């Protein structure tokens, strides 16, 4: 999966959780939880959505990679096994 593909799938998964959020306008290094005002339940639902779309099972110890959009993109690219 390329970085663009990862970004798109992350945005899709997040929109399902919080339809009004706009990841496209969030700086890549901004704190996602703070910018998007999401809580633990939103985050878990996002991880579930991501899993459904990509098959990637994000273990809890890897949640920290999703602190920023860029971190999430990097993680999904890496876990999908393709070069960015």
């Amino acid at each position, binding site marked *: 999966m390329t970085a663009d593909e990862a970004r798109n799938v992350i945005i899709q998964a997040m*929109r399902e959780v*919080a*339809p*009004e*959020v*706009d990841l*496209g*306008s*969030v700086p890549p290094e901004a704190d996602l*939880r703070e*910018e*998007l*005002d999401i*809580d*633990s*339940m939103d985050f*878990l*639902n996002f*991880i*579930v959505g991501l*899993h459904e779309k990509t098959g990637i*099972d*994000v*273990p*809890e*110890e890897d949640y920290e990679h999703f602190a920023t959009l860029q971190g999430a993109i990097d993680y999904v690219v890496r876990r999908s096994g393709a070069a960015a």
Partner: protein
Amino acid sequence: MADFVMPSLGADMEEGTVIRWLVKPGDEVRRGQIVAEVETEKADMEIEIFQDGVIDELIANEGDTVPVGGLLARVQAAGEARAVPEQEPPAEAPTAAEEATPEEAPQPADEGEPAAAKAETPGDGATPTEREPAPKPAVEATPAPPAKPQEAAERRRVTPSARKLAAELGVDPDTVRGTGVDGAVRRADIEQAATRGPAVAAPTEGRARVSPYARKKASELGVDLGQVTGSGPGGAITADDVQRAAAVPGAKAKPGPAPADKPAEPQEPPAEPETDRAAARTAARQRVIANLMERSKREIPHYYLGHTVDLSRAMQWLQEENQQRPVPERLLYSVLLMKAVAAAVPSVPEVNGNYEDGAFQPWTTVNLGVAVSLRDGGLVTPAVQDAGNKSLEELMRDLRDLVQRARTGKLRAAEMSNATITVTNLGDQGVESVQGVIYPPQVAIVGFGKVIERPWAEQGMVGVRPTITATLAADHRVSNGHRGGLFLAAIDRLLQEPTKL
């Protein structure tokens, strides 16, 4: 043939707009079935029908604004024809079992011993199972079938204190469905009616949603959100939309990507910009909450306790458990906290119930109110029914469902009406300790802060452990600090044995 009319869905409601019909002529409907979505000044809400029958005719069209009591539809009643209008507001949704989503069905009645009792030794020898509420609350774990409207109307009684409170809060008690004995309207019902607005305030169709980031950007750029056309899902306004609107020369009060069919009336501002409407709704809801909290602080002699809990065992167990679970079935630690609270109630039953008319009414069932923040800043506290008798999986399912519906305007009045104790968890916001304000007529609220690693000494050894501060705000008319301390200690003890939760 019976009339199905616009119900009163709470304080100050004079009219409602039919957003969407969920049934059509010829459809068979059952009592308790959600048949339409209605928008009021303060809330979007689903409305139920209170009889079995067949929809004969939809009188109101989608988009029509109908006064309370106004005709919405005609229903061919099952069996004998009824002429009594359906005027009962859906104060509870006990027949939700008839709906499509099984999760939304109220849990079956179970007055039996709470599962949690196994871990507790009642401090005063009086377990909830030995007690019965003096006036048995009508909305116990068994959601009593809603009284037939005409029956309820005949026997509706309003307690003196409820009537007084109704006057204070501007609620017409005659439009409130009573949950007391024989349908009596109690203070709790009035409060519920007054707070129902925020419960369902999340915007839905017809009203653009705005992300916090987009709202912030609009504020920075001076863009009127009411003039922005949303391009997000369901017309949600995104930051990009705001940016586009701001980029249009001299058009900060105009739509960004202007739809072709919109008339060009540049100098004609809308009668009521979206931002103003949203602000008014937010202010109205906050006023209702403020009134309730003011009354709480005025009438309830709060006392506050704090207790730091070592969460290492619970978190370790949860981590191992979640590793074995498919992603969709993972548990949040907050569910363990909820379960621990519900399970601790039997040891100190005086934290669970209502204080009304000068007396405490303990409940045997734990309907756990859960504070849920809405994206627009609102706050609702729907209740997980009979939490003490639910497994962690069931609590997780219920919590997920409640949060999702709270944020999409799909809560039912029943879920807002019968909490017996509330839990609020502000850990996600980085809060370390919560000093809660009790929701009248409840008598206790438990707060949890953030899970924080702290140095922890045990048996002469110091280590770093995940900890959480549990707090209790309780009503001194009902319990005292000693008993409150036992309650928090019971929560702690339960969290040390997560496998038993």
